[in-house]
């Protein structure tokens, strides 16, 4: 069974080839069927693989299977195999990638139906799934890196999908370059791992690492570098600014790549390498610190954004921050649980936003929306579920996963919990603000837009409904013991985190405290939702126009704390100036000037003995040719 694992990534790759080559020949329906079909078959296979691992776990095994495919690179002692690993962690990621991937492919059939680049879009999506599966399935850091960079390429292609818009093409480039900064960290980390452990394979590295002492200097460096890589891919401070710009891509892309799957790769990678991080407590503190800082910063920005996709983008950055907070406080299962629930509700919210944008004739500004719930009932209901889920209101999925992270944070450091709690308040507020501005009150758009308003076709509402169900009930996967749950996910993933748990000991929190924490965050989220209702529904507040006067805090939030402007002034423009300076002053005038000067001096001094020479390089060369040919002829005659 596991021997056939390579078919799972191969199918989307075949889909990529067929749709890529046949994009102008095959009709749209066929392209849509092929594109979604290959992912669906991959999903079915993933289900089989999952049940295989599940059975192994039930039987008491660790459920890990390694499947080598072929040796890829070898040089001296260095050998890299293209090889896959199926284990509890990757089996769940497989389901997320192919399952949600399939739903988003189906959604795209409707969403992209009027786009002339339909075939190209599906081929890129298929290619993305292929690389994402490599990332997830790799049994070593190099195969993971192939996927890691490959999804970056697809992200580049899909952000810049509407490449005629110069700004979109620029956003694509920005995403790629910022990711590459992280990727350099990844590569150096991998070199360090190889020289330390003599292998790239997880199965060889982690047991060796477990034998090291906590606070080991090499592990500190390795984990810091890996974390740099994660900040790029998973949009954390300081490399997060590409993700909001990435909203230039079509909305299904935002849902699939920039919410549910690719951006969680950093969390996946750290969860995978958990033992390395557990033994590097300093790195874990940094991870937690960066995570909570990103969560708060992004949430603060989301409070004032008016573009529906921008709100969701900053929300994603913020939620990713929570996942890093979870990793940082050692809640590996909790962080991964949040990856899972976030994939459900954020994909749902993005697709819902896409449905709204589709209905609004490509309008994204919430100030022009309002009152859409009557015209778009399915979109409204499903997005309401998504909003409740992300806000952490029980009993929907987000409540459980966020609670698990915050409970760990509470045990580790009360300050982290307080900050996380504040972030949760922000989250509930901006999400309900978005929901109310979009679906409640009066319609504020143009007559033309009002005329076109319609609920989306079945291909788009079907994925919404499925995701809404998942977002609502996803929490059941890991109901905490305090609520009488079985913590299924934690048990299933146990072998993945076993080495770390052995070092840190079991997590323990009094049930009474846990109830109090849950109640606090749940009630607070509801209060924020009511506050948002009061502001945007009862008082009918509409966000002010772009140019209007704002208070200092509001201005900072609205302008994203001017971080892009700061990067531009500190890094981009100085580098461009340096480029011109190096070229004109150092290279042309300096080095080349010196070379020319030397040449001229030689020429001047040679004037005296010039009488025998014509000064014609062509002539010299001609003489040389004669010489060389003479030599050759001489040699040939001798032979």
């Amino acid at each position, binding site marked *: 069974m596991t021997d056939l694992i390579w078919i799972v990534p191969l199918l989307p790759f075949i889909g990529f080839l067929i749709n890529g080559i046949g994009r102008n020949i095959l009709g749209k329906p066929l392209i849509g069927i092929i594109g979604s079909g290959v992912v669906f078959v991959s999903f079915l296979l993933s289900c089989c693989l999952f049940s295989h691992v599940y059975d192994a776990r039930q039987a008491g095994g660790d459920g890990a299977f390694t499947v080598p495919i*072929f*040796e*890829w*690179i*070898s*040089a*001296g*002692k*260095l050998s890299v195999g293209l090889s896959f690993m199926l284990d509890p962690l990757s089996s769940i990621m497989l389901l997320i990638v192919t399952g949600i991937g399939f739903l988003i492919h189906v959604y795209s059939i409707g969403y992209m139906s009027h786009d002339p680049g339909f075939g190209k879009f599906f081929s890129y999506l298929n290619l993305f799934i292929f690389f994402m599966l490599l990332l997830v399935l790799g049994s070593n850091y190099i195969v993971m*890196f*192939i996927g890691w*960079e*490959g999804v970056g*390429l697809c992200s*580049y292609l899909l952000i*810049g999908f509407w*490449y*005629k*818009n*110069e700004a979109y*093409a*620029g956003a694509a*480039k920005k995403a*790629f*370059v910022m990711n*590459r*900064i992280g*990727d*350099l960290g990844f*590569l*150096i980390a991998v*070199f*360090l791992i*190889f*020289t330390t452990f003599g292998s790239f394979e997880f199965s060889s590295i982690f047991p060796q690492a477990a034998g090291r002492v906590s606070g080991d200097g090499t592990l500190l460096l390795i984990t810091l570098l890996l974390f740099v890589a994660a900040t790029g891919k998973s949009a954390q401070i300081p490399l997060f600014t590409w993700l909001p710009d990435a909203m230039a891509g079509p909305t299904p892309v935002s849902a699939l790549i920039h919410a549910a799957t690719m951006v969680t790769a950093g969390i996946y990678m750290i969860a995978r390498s958990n033992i390395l991080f557990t033994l590097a407590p300093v790195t874990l503190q940094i991870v937690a610190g960066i995570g909570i800082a990103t969560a708060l910063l992004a949430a603060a920005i989301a409070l004032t954004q008016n573009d529906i996709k921008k709100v969701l983008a900053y929300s994603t950055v913020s939620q990713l921050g929570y996942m890093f907070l979870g990793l940082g406080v050692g809640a590996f299962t909790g962080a991964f649980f949040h990856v899972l629930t976030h994939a459900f509700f954020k994909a749902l919210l993005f697709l819902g936003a896409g449905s709204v944008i589709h209905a609004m004739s490509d309008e994204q500004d919430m100030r022009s929306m309002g009152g859409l719930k009557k015209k778009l009932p399915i979109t409204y209901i499903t997005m309401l579920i998504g909003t409740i889920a992300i806000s952490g209101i029980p009993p929907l999925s987000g409540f459980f996963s966020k609670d698990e992270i915050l409970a760990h944070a509470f045990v580790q450091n009360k300050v982290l919990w307080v900050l996380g709690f504040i972030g949760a308040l922000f989250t509930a507020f901006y999400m309900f603000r978005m929901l109310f501005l979009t679906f409640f009150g009066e319609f504020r758009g143009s007559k033309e837009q009002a005329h076109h308003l319609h609920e989306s076709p079945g291909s788009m509402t079907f994925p919404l409904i499925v995701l809404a169900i998942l977002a609502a009930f996803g929490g059941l996967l890991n109901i905490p013991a305090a609520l009488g749950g079985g913590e299924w996910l934690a048990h299933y993933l146990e072998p993945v985190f076993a080495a770390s748990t052995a070092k840190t000991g079991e997590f323990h929190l009094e049930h009474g405290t846990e109830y109090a924490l849950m109640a606090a965050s749940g009630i607070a989220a509801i209060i924020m939702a009511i506050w948002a209702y009061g502001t945007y529904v009862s008082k009918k507040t509409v966000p002010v126009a772009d140019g209007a006067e704002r208070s200092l805090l509001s201005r900072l939030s609205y302008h994203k704390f001017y971080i892009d402007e700061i990067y531009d002034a500190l890094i981009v423009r100085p*580098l*461009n100036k*340096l*480029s*011109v300076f*190096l*070229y004109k002053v*150092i*290279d042309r005038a300096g*080095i*080349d000037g010196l*070379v*020319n000067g030397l*040449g001229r001096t030689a020429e001047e001094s040679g004037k005296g003995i010039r009488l025998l020479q014509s000064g014609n*390089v*062509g002539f010299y*060369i001609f003489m*040389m*040719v004669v010489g*060389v040919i003479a*030599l050759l002829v*001489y*040699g040939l005659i*001798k*032979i």
Partner: protein
Amino acid sequence: MDNLFILIFIPVVGALVLALTGKSASAKTLALLFPLLSLAYSLSFLFHFVPDASMQFEQQVPWISSLGIQFHVGIDGISLPLVLLTNVLVPLIILASYGRKYKGDFYALVLFMQAGLLLVFTALDAFVFYVGWEAALIPIYFICALWGGENRIRVTIKFFIYTFFGSLLMLIAIIYLHLQVPGHSYELRSFYQLALDAPTQGWIFWAFFIAFAIKIPIFPFHTWQPDTYTEAPSAGTMLLAGIMLKMGLYGLIRWLIPIAPLGVAAYGQLAIILAVIGLVYASIIAFKQQHIKRVVAYSSIAHVGLMAAGIFAWNVQGLQGAVIQMVNHGISVVGLFFVLDIIAQRLGTHDIKLTGGLAKPAPKLAAVFLIIVMGAIGLPLTNGFVGEFLLLVGIYNYGLWYAVFAGLTLILGAVYMLRLYQKTMLGETPEQNARFKDIAGTEVLVLGIIVLLVVGIGVYPKPLLHLSEAAVSQLINQVSLK
């Protein structure tokens, strides 16, 4: 049957035939026929090659016996990839120039150069090496001087004098070594056995290093390169960047380091530092270039800097990486310059500001260009990654910080290459570019082959790595710099 002399002389015969038939209409066909013959014949070498560390297909005849000069050539795992590269790229470059009105004389020069290159990559006698070195230089001089752009004369004279100056230094070193060998031979192997003292190896190092550093080029000996690449006709640029600069890199591996290990021990670190400085320096300069060929010219300085650093790191990974990356860079850079040539030909300009939006009228060109760009910036599953990865491992083994700075190529390369791609292909299509014709015919053929190589080597590099593995390991064991 696998006679290396014949392999080297096929292009010479071709060059003579083309020079004689001159302006006849069949020149183009003939110009392709001979390189294809060379390619087919070199495949026979590939099939009969035993991937061990030995020197194979050796041919040796006395040439100028009174001076101890032997016409001695042979192929091992390090030279074979370069011989194949030469014989694959020459027909591609000729096909790529089919859109121009070149006559027999042009193609004769190309083939003559091919012979010179093959001589350099197979020479086991220093005199033969030197003859090949110069024999490759002369035709490219004429190609650039006769068919180049506006400033061709000024630029090519500088190029010629600069590289010739380097060659002379090397010649002095070669003659000196020759005189040191008991019995006065030019044999490579006898050079290897010379146990010269450290100061002597020191100046031998510099004599060879400057010659090779100019050719490669390594910072700060590079200033002839952007001008020459820009002014040369496209085929000339491809020959220079695709194959000729590998002469210098190959020279480091085959001649400089094994002959002067004590010199390398003393100055190798400086060489790596120069190579890495050049990498970062050229990458940053490439950011803002307005001439599309200049972007790739500077990118090439960055890429060869990485290869030179990997070679001087002198370990298996670095050297394996350098060998495979020489091949990869040749393939990618020919593809890049061909794409730029297509753009410049049709638009009549090299100005990056006047290009743009070409993906709309030319989707096929945009697709192949993207794949080649990804190869150039080393995306996994393209050829560039395999080489870059091994080179960086090699440099890392030499020193962490060297790898960090050399690794900046990952980021900087993405910046300038994606800028080039964005400025030429993406954005709104200006009116004057709307009728841009997509690639067709031989253009599709050439770029199709290049794309296949880019992806093929990227997905399954093992056979190519396998060719050089044993030879590289043996060389590293044999020549210790510690």
